[in-house]
């Protein structure tokens, strides 16, 4: 039982005007894996530190496993943490660093050895166990920090960008392992990352933070597919969601979006906004790119072609605005070509141009298409 309940957490660092976290309330279930994302400086670390007991909130409380721990020192909270700055002990060898949490818990020697060896193996640190941190590369240091956190079996695991300095391959391997460990131990995990793929593949839920507040929280694909506002849509996903202002027009039964002098079919539910202007949000990968003209397609001029390996990212000019669209790597297009774009109306999201908030009642965006999820 280690669910985390944060209630109205407010924290302002002394000497600053803005709140680092602004009235955050959040409930992380026992054993849940919550991923925290948000722009740099939005308060993610601060939130973790308050859970850990390293920072005491100005207002609000933190409960872990039903206990009010707001005033409890860190070491009594039964948690472990990967620090963004690693904070591995320079005066200890890697082995002692990894073993630190176990040593503090007076785990038997043999057990410590076994677990350290295991963690080191997992993070490819076995050869470095007898080095001092100063003798390691940046990524190796980060791995020590991660290893130190995962060897101890605590109720709560906090990880602050634990893999930022590792290569994709290692990161992927570790992700799988972490999933396994966490599931096995039932650890409640809060995980900060900037990596899209990590957020979507690891999290039971994703919380998107902005300026010290939670902008949206929900299962990864919900958040990805149906961002609650322009900010979330723009923030999650690489490339970010495209946002275009469009006029809504109803011609008989048909609801259409007017983009410049071209038209695209819109979902019927948008009918209520007929005659008005909305912001259309659509992801690059939800735009279908065709070489030839067809009904219900709009023409656009290709401006930039960026191969990203697994796909090609095009920046096209649509009604005078840059739009990012994605095509499979097999597509042959060049800058200056004209392409024809189509969008499944169900993949469109609509936002209030004034507030940026999703127009939920009027669209289907709130109900994501059903998906299989592993």
């Amino acid at each position, binding site marked *: 039982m280690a669910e985390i309940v944060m209630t*109205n957490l407010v924290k302002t660092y002394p000497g600053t005007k803005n709140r680092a976290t602004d009235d955050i309330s959040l*409930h*992380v*279930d026992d054993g849940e894996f919550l991923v925290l994302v948000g722009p740099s400086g939005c308060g993610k670390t601060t939130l973790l530190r308050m859970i850990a007991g390293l920072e005491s909130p100005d207002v609000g409380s933190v409960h872990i496993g*039903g*206990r*009010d721990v707001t*005033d409890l020192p860190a070491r009594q909270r039964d948690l472990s943490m990967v620090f963004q700055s690693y904070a591995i002990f320079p005066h200890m060898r890697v082995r002692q660093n990894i073993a630190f949490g176990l040593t503090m818990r007076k785990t038997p020697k043999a057990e410590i050895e076994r677990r350290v060896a295991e963690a080191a193996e997992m993070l490819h640190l076995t050869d470095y166990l007898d080095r001092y941190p100063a003798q390691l590369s940046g990524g190796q240091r980060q791995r020590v920090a991660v290893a130190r956190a995962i060897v101890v079996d605590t109720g709560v695991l906090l990880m602050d960008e634990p893999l930022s300095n590792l290569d994709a391959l290692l990161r992927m391997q570790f992700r799988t392992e972490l999933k396994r460990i966490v599931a096995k131990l039932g650890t409640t995990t809060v995980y900060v990352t900037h990596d899209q793929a990590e957020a979507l593949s690891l999290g039971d839920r994703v919380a998107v933070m902005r300026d010290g507040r939670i902008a949206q929280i929900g299962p990864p694909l919900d958040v990805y597919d149906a961002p609650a506002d322009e900010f979330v849509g723009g923030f999650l996903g690489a490339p970010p969601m495209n946002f275009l202002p469009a006029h809504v027009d109803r011609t008989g039964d048909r609801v259409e979006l007017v983009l410049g002098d071209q038209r695209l079919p819109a979902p019927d539910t948008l009918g209520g906004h007929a005659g008005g202007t909305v912001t259309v949000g659509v992801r690059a990968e939800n735009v279908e790119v065709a070489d030839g003209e067809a009904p219900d397609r709009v023409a656009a001029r290709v401006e930039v072609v960026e191969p990203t390996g697994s796909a090609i990212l095009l920046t096209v000019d649509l009604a005078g605005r840059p739009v990012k669209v994605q095509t499979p790597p097999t597509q042959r297009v060049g800058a200056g070509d004209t392409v024809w774009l189509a969008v499944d109306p169900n993949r469109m999201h609509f936002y209030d141009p004034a507030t940026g908030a999703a127009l939920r009642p009027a669209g289907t965006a709130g109900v994501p298409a059903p998906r299989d999820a592993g």
Partner: protein
Amino acid sequence: MTGPATTATPAPAPRGEAKTATATTAAARRRRARRRTVLVQTACIAITLFMGVPIYLVALAALSSREALNEFPLALLPTDPSFETMRVFLTSTGVTGAFVNSIEVGLLSLVLSLALGVPAGYAVARYAFRGREPYQLFLLMTRALPIVVLSVPLARVFLGTGLYDTTYAVALLHTALALPTTVLITSAIFVAVPAEHEEAAMVFGATPARAFTRVVLPQALPGIAAAAIFTFVTSWNEVLGAAILTFNRRTLPAQVLSTLSDSPLAYRFAGGFALVVPALVFIAFMRRYLLNMWGTTIR
């Protein structure tokens, strides 16, 4: 594990009766925190009394009349302050000159010992050169030999140079006495300054000297301040060397302290107290550098 809570629930679920329980433990915890604060404060006050009361007593004695000091039991409060002994003491021959000399010697030693000692401290901290340990021992050797047995040959060294009976001679000697302290203390602090900061400075075009002064030195300020305090108070209180190397240009301790034990008690207190005050002012001034000012250190 597929069904996490659908929304961010603002309030914790299991409240109810548990609420009062957590409330009381929170209160208990806060009480414990308060008890801790009280404990820390008590300890601080106790230590402050131990460290401060003797100084209070000298001040008290220095401002008491001669007769008051002969009473028993002694008064513990300044019921009848008398500035007479203090006045006589402060106006006695040479005290002003000696005061000026002491300041001069103290500051000169400070500058010299930092100028010589800080680079050496840096070398000891940063480089693993052969002779590092012998060098440290060499430094200590000059400090480990009671200076009294060196007094005559030392005086002769200065007599041979024409520096005898000048404040420079005393400053040089005090520099030498403070040098081991300066080197060792600063070296202990320099090790803690990440070499990477220096590398960054050099990458951005700083000469080694500038990298040192702009980047390393500010971070080592606490150590420099500690070393400076030692140098100054060592110099300020040093008697024998100053007495042997000067004749007409005494420092305050040489002028006063050396013969203080022959003076009546009241004068001893007055002299002792008068000597402490300037050093206290100096420490008050340097103290803030001992605590670095840019928040916690980061790496």
